[in-house]
């Protein structure tokens, strides 16, 4: 080997002068460690095999040294050298972890400090959130290995390599790779009503009265949530509660709600006892949870109008043979909403995320007038919740964004209402902005290129599904076995991100216009074509526009670094540009109307950002507009003001605290589906929130 003035590339990417002494020293030490004699002649022989070129990496040199040692027959020395390298690798990993640990401690909040899966649902950073953060990188490695091994078995090594290549080059993104559990589910509580929690590993028997319902429900939701990586929806919560209240005080309890219900000195009324149970359940479920890295459980509930309720629960029987009582439930739903809205002026409560399910008639009016009006009334009182409007009871949401088509509204005496058991097993997201730009830059028709990506995503999802089935076969998924979740009614979800940005790259205007609509339908229609093609009686696919809490920021950053056109720091989660103030509220409803969302089977919840609350009449009109445009899933978002000095919470969007006049204030907003303090969002998301245009209505 000739000695020249080389530079080498160190592990952190920096360059250094090549030093022969360092290599000789390392080899000599390896010989020493196994008590083998090494003179200059032996070492020169080993060095002679090395092929050093400019900018060679340290790793590469060490690999060559290993091979060279073995070629010269110094097997024991080579082994020692390999072990030595391994020890140092482990040391470096620990060092990295320690560095992460200190950076995390210094960061402003938990979401900004999180390296892998920033999530604003974590209120505080502390030792518990840190413990959750540290193994995330290992989970990602493990999940990738599990998945690629399965892909290899099913489709061959080439596809597995392609998957990793697409993933590491950010054409696609695997959501929730830091968890082993399947994603989110809307569960039927019927198995719990019959058997308690024994079958899912708990020790409580079936609830028998209001008290055991309230206590048991909380435990059950905690248990279910610890076996899911995302949300847990209990669309029957209030219906079951109404059943147990009825058992306590009779079905007409709501007509006598102000009667005294207990003999304590407090002389609580029926209403007070009920709202005390609301308080117990809601406050407990908003606590940070040990099994979920100190996040609260993502608890979701649903409200129904009379017709929606009848479609889903028309055939429902409780185990004692009685049927749910609509009049009582209608009262209880309203009571809960009013109570929760009021409670939110005292404490920042994120959960439950609520969805109001309304049926509409042919003219786009709410079939159930009373509930249509009540929905508008609650919005006008400043309550924040989602509304799902449809001509038939075709969907339920399992989290604050994902709507799930329900395929079976039948009733079974072991599993309860078929419709409520739904959700998404796993989400794999396509970065449309990068894919489309890559195709166009390489002179390929973008839909043709996308078709390959979409096809790959479906195969990967099927591989995921096989892994899930294997877990189930080994008894690892009791939620499925006990019937809380039906595996074949759960979707495999294809997510999309960067749609608006890709359209901007194609020179399209992001307004309700035919060219943009054609672009949207072309892409979403293609995904749906594959969703149908890959569907079997055991597997179903849907497509959703992911909220991209942190993915939107990551994609923008990665794409910019790689020289792609990136018009903003966080990709949109809507069909319109959030900071565009030239679009009217009506335009936004149009852009989330039927023609745009037609193929978006997994949903996208329009977040209508407003600066001020509207009146009941105005909300009623907007509900009509939404129904007419076919915008089926939406919420109105008016930031609530929280005073950092005196703690006052105000439903209005204010610049100063109305009580203590302090300007040190924070806001509660729905950036991504659930209501949280803006200061809990990651740095990049906070910037997005600041840029977002709140229509000065």
């Amino acid at each position, binding site marked *: 080997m000739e000695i020249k003035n080389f530079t080498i590339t160190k592990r952190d990417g920096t360059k250094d002068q090549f030093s022969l002494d360092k290599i000789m020293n390392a080899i000599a030490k390896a010989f020493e460690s196994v008590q083998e004699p090494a003179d200059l002649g032996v070492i020169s022989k080993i060095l002679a095999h090395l092929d050093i070129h400019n900018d060679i990496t340290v790793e590469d040199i060490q690999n060559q040294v290993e091979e060279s040692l073995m070629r010269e027959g110094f097997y024991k020395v080579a082994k020692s050298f390999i072990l030595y390298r391994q020890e140092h690798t482990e040391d470096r990993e620990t060092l990295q972890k320690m560095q992460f640990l200190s950076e995390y401690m210094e960061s402003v909040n938990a979401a900004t400090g999180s390296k892998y899966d920033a999530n604003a649902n974590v209120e505080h950073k502390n030792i518990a959130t840190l413990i959750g953060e540290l193994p995330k990188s290992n989970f990602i490695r493990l999940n990738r290995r599990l998945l690629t091994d399965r892909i290899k078995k099913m489709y061959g090594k080439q596809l597995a390599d392609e998957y990793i290549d697409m993933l590491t080059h950010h054409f696609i993104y695997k959501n929730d790779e830091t968890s082993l559990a399947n994603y989110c589910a809307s569960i039927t509580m019927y198995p719990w009503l019959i058997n308690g929690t024994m079958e899912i590993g708990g020790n409580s028997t079936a609830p028998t009265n209001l008290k055991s319902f309230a206590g048991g429900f909380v435990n059950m939701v905690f248990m279910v949530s610890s076996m899911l990586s995302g949300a847990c929806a209990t669309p029957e919560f209030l219906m079951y509660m109404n059943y147990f209240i009825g058992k306590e005080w009779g079905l007409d309890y709501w007509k006598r709600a102000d009667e005294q219900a207990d003999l304590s000195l407090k002389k609580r009324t029926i209403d007070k006892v009920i709202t005390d149970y609301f308080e117990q359940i809601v406050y407990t479920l908003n606590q940070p949870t040990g099994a979920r890295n100190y996040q609260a459980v993502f608890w979701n509930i649903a409200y129904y109008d009379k017709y929606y309720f009848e479609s889903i629960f028309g055939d429902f029987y409780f185990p004692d043979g009685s049927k749910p009582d609509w009049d009582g439930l209608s009262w209880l739903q309203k009571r809960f909403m009013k109570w929760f809205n009021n409670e939110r002026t005292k404490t920042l409560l994120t959960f439950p995320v609520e969805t109001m399910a309304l049926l509409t008639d042919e003219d786009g009016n709410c079939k159930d007038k009373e509930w249509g009006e009540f929905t508008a009334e609650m919005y006008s009182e400043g309550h924040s919740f989602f509304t799902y409007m449809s001509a038939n009871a075709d969907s339920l949401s399992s989290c604050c964004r994902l709507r799930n088509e329900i395929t079976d509204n039948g009733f079974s005496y072991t599993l309860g209402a078929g419709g409520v058991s739904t959700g998404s097993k796993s989400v794999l997201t396509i970065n449309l902005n990068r894919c489309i730009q890559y195709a166009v830059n390489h002179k390929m028709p973008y839909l043709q290129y996308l078709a390959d990506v979409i096809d790959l995503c479906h195969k990967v999802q099927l591989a995921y599904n096989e892994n899930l089935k294997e877990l189930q076969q080994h008894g690892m998924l009791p939620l499925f076995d006990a019937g809380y979740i039906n595996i074949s009614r759960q979707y495999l979800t294809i997510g999309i991100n960067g749609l608006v940005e890709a359209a901007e790259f194609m020179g399209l205007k992001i307004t309700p216009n035919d060219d943009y609509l054609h672009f949207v339908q072309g892409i979403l229609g293609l995904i749906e074509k594959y969703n149908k093609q890959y569907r079997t009686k055991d597997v179903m696919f849907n497509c959703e526009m992911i909220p991209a809490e942190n993915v939107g920021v990551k994609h923008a950053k990665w794409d910019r670094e790689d020289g792609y056109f990136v018009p903003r720091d966080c990709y949109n989660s809507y069909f319109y540009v959030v900071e565009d103030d030239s679009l*009217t*509220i*009506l335009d936004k409803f149009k852009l989330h109307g039927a023609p745009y969302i037609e193929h978006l089977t997994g949903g996208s919840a329009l977040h209508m950002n*407003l600066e*001020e609350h*509207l*009146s*009941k*009449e*105005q909300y009623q*009109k*907007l509900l*009509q*507009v939404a129904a*007419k445009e076919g915008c089926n899933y939406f919420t109105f978002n008016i930031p609530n003001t929280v005073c950092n000095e005196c703690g006052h919470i105000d439903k*209005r969007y204010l610049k100063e605290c109305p009580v203590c006049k302090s300007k040190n204030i924070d806001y509660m907003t729905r950036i991504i589906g659930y209501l949280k303090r803006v200061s809990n969002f990651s740095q990049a998301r906070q910037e997005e929130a600041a840029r977002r245009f709140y229509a*000065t*209505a």
Partner: protein
Amino acid sequence: MLKYVNTDIVFQEIPDEVTLAINISNCPCHCPGCHSQYLWGDVGLPLTISALDDFVTKYGDDITCFSFMGGDADPKGVNQLAQYIHEEYPQFKVAWYSGKTVIARTVNKADFDYIKIGPYIEHLGPLKSPTTNQRMYRKTDDGTFEDITERFWRK
């Protein structure tokens, strides 16, 4: 000839209505501290009855009310447009944001459902401010106008 610069869908300007606000230019009021100085010049597109027809085609029943923002240089012109909307499209309410302290005698107030009067005086504040000099009136069922300014103060 009335001209308008742009339009917007608004909610706070007229209570309980979903309103298409039409921002009319050539405003003669020139209030000190005006937030819409871009409306002082004689600029924009002609605000004719065919422009109104186009708005109706575009927004249909998504809106409930038309509001003329300004137009004090030609109050009769505003009146004619208001009359046209009520005759042709009786489903819509009509509102007028005037900067004058009184409505000219030549204007038939019955052609409006809401009328706001009063210039913007900085230290007294806009409609939202309880000290405002501006007034919002709504036509009642018997044709008289009631002062509903207080609705802008309530929260």
